[in-house]
């Protein structure tokens, strides 16, 4: 606010001085002009009267000649004063109006307002350093989950979209360059409630600049950054960026996971999707020879991962010298003869992975005509082409923005979940299938909520209180309904972290200790049920012992009296 006030004052210096000088001359002159009162006595206006007169004349209000009719000398001076004062007055008003429409001032006001609304946030929030396709999905999901978000974006059009979006809570946003440290500070990098910075622009350099700036200003703050180039990713890692997200590598890994462990893949998808959705049963990609069209970053990651699964690939690429592939068929893949050259009729799958949506659709449609049994993987680049891709209905549609958003959500909503998923990847397929059937039995077919609790004084006072009193609380107690202990809540503990040692799907009889962190998945109802039992020691005592602890003095006395008898 300060800087705006000073900006206005500085701009108004000239018109204000002009007004003061002109008024002072007019008032002085008027008070010196000789006049005559109604009795014919010589009379002059006092300075105060002159000030009053000039004030109403300069502002063109004009009450007339008061208190007596003026002499010629006074009228002459007043005529001069009118021209002297009215013009600076309008000049000043014009200046103020121009100032209010001034872009620099407006920018200063919006920036100030943004900084203030961030300062006033009283709950944990994330900073998003872009509002592109993946960031908007992320912002929407976080907002639905009741988490606060702050957005910095350099393109006004995208922010207009945010302005029109219906959100639960206000999302403060600023049209500014996130690379500039002062903008990051305004967005709350130093704010005590800031829980992390997410930078997902499609420009690696920008993401790098943001990650470096945040790590220098506030090293404690977690940073999630998107990086598509390996050198940038390495640079980010050297600065301690917490999570580096490369959508192409991620998709390649997921595709490989689907080929060799569909169960693990389903578990992964199920736990990172938006809660409440139902997942279609995924197709199992066939083994055999695949045709990969487009050998860019996406194609390279796919080929690398497929080859690790011992699947042979034939690469079709329009510009082999740019992408650096040695054995490939030159062509875009949209024409039948290129695909025939790649022996599409004997292949089991095709990957259309160019960065052009229309070409990708054309590739798979041509290939489908040549070989209708093909397993189709298609890359979708733009979200607004959704309808076209739905029409085609490929076996796997890869969308970078969704992959990025899911990966970010896994890290942001429950940091333990990311750790859990990394461990799941090393488990066998049958283990994953077993866990899925267990989860489905408890929480149903829809995507469950995931959340973590840590056992400490502030978040789970009830557990800490019971443990202090020497009453042991087990994981099993947390799965019981606080309303009726014989019933179970629809939740499953997935991971227990004790002294930094993770325990995958801990046995239900495990006793809890202060400092434990537990990752749960379950329904929203179960989550609120659990919230009651960890916060309310009466409810927890009931769960553990089956005893209703009396609350009031009278009942305590009655109970004690009965017990003594």
């Amino acid at each position: 606010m300060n800087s705006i006030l000073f900006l206005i004052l500085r701009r108004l210096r000239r018109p204000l001085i002009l007004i003061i000088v002109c008024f002072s001359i007019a008032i002085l002159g008027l008070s010196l002009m000789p006049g005559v009162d109604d009795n014919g006595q010589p009379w002059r206006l006092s300075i105060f009267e002159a000030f009053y007169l000039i004030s109403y004349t300069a502002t063109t209000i004009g009450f007339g000649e008061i208190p007596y009719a003026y002499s010629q000398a006074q009228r002459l001076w007043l005529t001069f004063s009118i021209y002297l004062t009215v013009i600076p007055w309008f000049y000043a008003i014009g200046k103020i109006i121009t100032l209010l429409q001034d872009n620099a001032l407006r920018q200063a006001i919006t920036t100030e307002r943004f900084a203030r609304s961030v300062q006033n946030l009283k709950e944990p929030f994330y900073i998003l350093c872009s509002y592109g396709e993946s960031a908007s999905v992320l912002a929407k999901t976080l907002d639905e989950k009741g988490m606060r978000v702050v957005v910095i974006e350099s393109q006004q059009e995208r922010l207009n979209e945010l302005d029109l979006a219906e959100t639960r809570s206000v999302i403060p946003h600023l049209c500014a360059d996130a690379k500039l440290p002062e903008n990051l500070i305004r967005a709350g990098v130093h704010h005590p409630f800031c829980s992390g910075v997410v930078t997902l622009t499609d420009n690696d350099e920008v993401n790098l600049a943001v990650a470096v700036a945040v790590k220098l200003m506030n090293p404690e703050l977690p940073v999630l950054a998107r990086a598509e180039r390996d050198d940038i990713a390495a640079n980010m890692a050297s600065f301690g960026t917490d999570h580096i997200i490369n959508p192409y590598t991620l998709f390649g890994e997921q595709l490989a996971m689907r080929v060799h462990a569909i169960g693990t893949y389903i578990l992964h998808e199920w736990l990172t999707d938006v809660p409440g959705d139902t997942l279609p049963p995924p197709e199992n990609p066939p083994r055999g020879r695949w045709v990969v069209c487009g050998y860019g970053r996406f194609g390279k990651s796919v080929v690398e991962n497929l080859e690790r699964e011992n699947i042979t690939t034939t690469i079709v690429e329009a510009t082999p010298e740019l992408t650096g592939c040695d054995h490939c068929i030159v062509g875009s893949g949209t024409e039948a003869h290129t695909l025939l050259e790649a022996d599409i009729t004997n292949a089991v799958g095709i990957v259309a992975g160019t960065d052009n949506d229309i070409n990708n659709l054309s590739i798979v449609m041509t290939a489908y005509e040549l070989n209708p049994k093909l397993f189709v993987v298609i890359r979708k680049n733009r979200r607004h082409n959704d309808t076209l891709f739905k029409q085609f209905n490929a076996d796997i549609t890869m969308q970078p923005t969704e992959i990025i958003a899911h990966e970010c959500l896994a890290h942001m909503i429950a940091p333990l979940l990311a750790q859990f998923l990394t461990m799941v990847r090393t488990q066998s397929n049958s283990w994953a299938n077993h866990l899925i059937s267990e989860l489905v039995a408890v929480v149903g077919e829809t995507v469950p909520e995931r959340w973590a609790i840590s056992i400490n004084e502030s978040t789970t006072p009830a557990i800490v209180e019971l443990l202090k009193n020497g009453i042991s609380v087990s994981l099993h107690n947390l799965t019981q309904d606080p309303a009726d202990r014989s019933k179970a809540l629809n939740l499953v503990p997935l991971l227990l972290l004790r002294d930094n040692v993770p325990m995958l799907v801990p046995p239900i009889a495990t006793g809890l200790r202060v400092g434990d962190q537990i990752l749960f998945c379950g329904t929203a109802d179960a989550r609120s049920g659990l919230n009651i039992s960890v916060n309310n020691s009466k409810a927890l005592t009931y769960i553990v012992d089956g005893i209703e602890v009396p609350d009031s003095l009278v009942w305590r006395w009655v109970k004690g009296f009965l017990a003594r008898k």
Partner: protein
Amino acid sequence: MNLEKVIFGFFIVLAMTLNFGFFLGDIDNPHHHHVYELYAAIIVSLVATVLKFGDRTHVGAILLSTSLAADIQLIAAAILWAALSGKMDDASLTVYIVSLSGGALMANFVSVILLISETIGQRR
């Protein structure tokens, strides 16, 4: 030599000297304190205030606040004069007005001291 600095210094010093000129004389003698001198002091003080606008430095902020203090007291004196003249005896009215202008003089004095100290602090 900078014309802007000359004007700036001129108005600040003039605000103080005019104020002092008005203040000088017996505190209850209306003949020692002329209304036009108060008028000039107010106008010059206002101009000095506006000249100080927009300086974001610490000294600039203190200079502005001293000017505002002087303005308020001078304007209060002028309002008293306009409102009470003829309604009470001249001697006690003059005491009110002159003592207010004395307060303004202190503020102007601080302003000039700040200006001098800043000037001495400058190497050139």
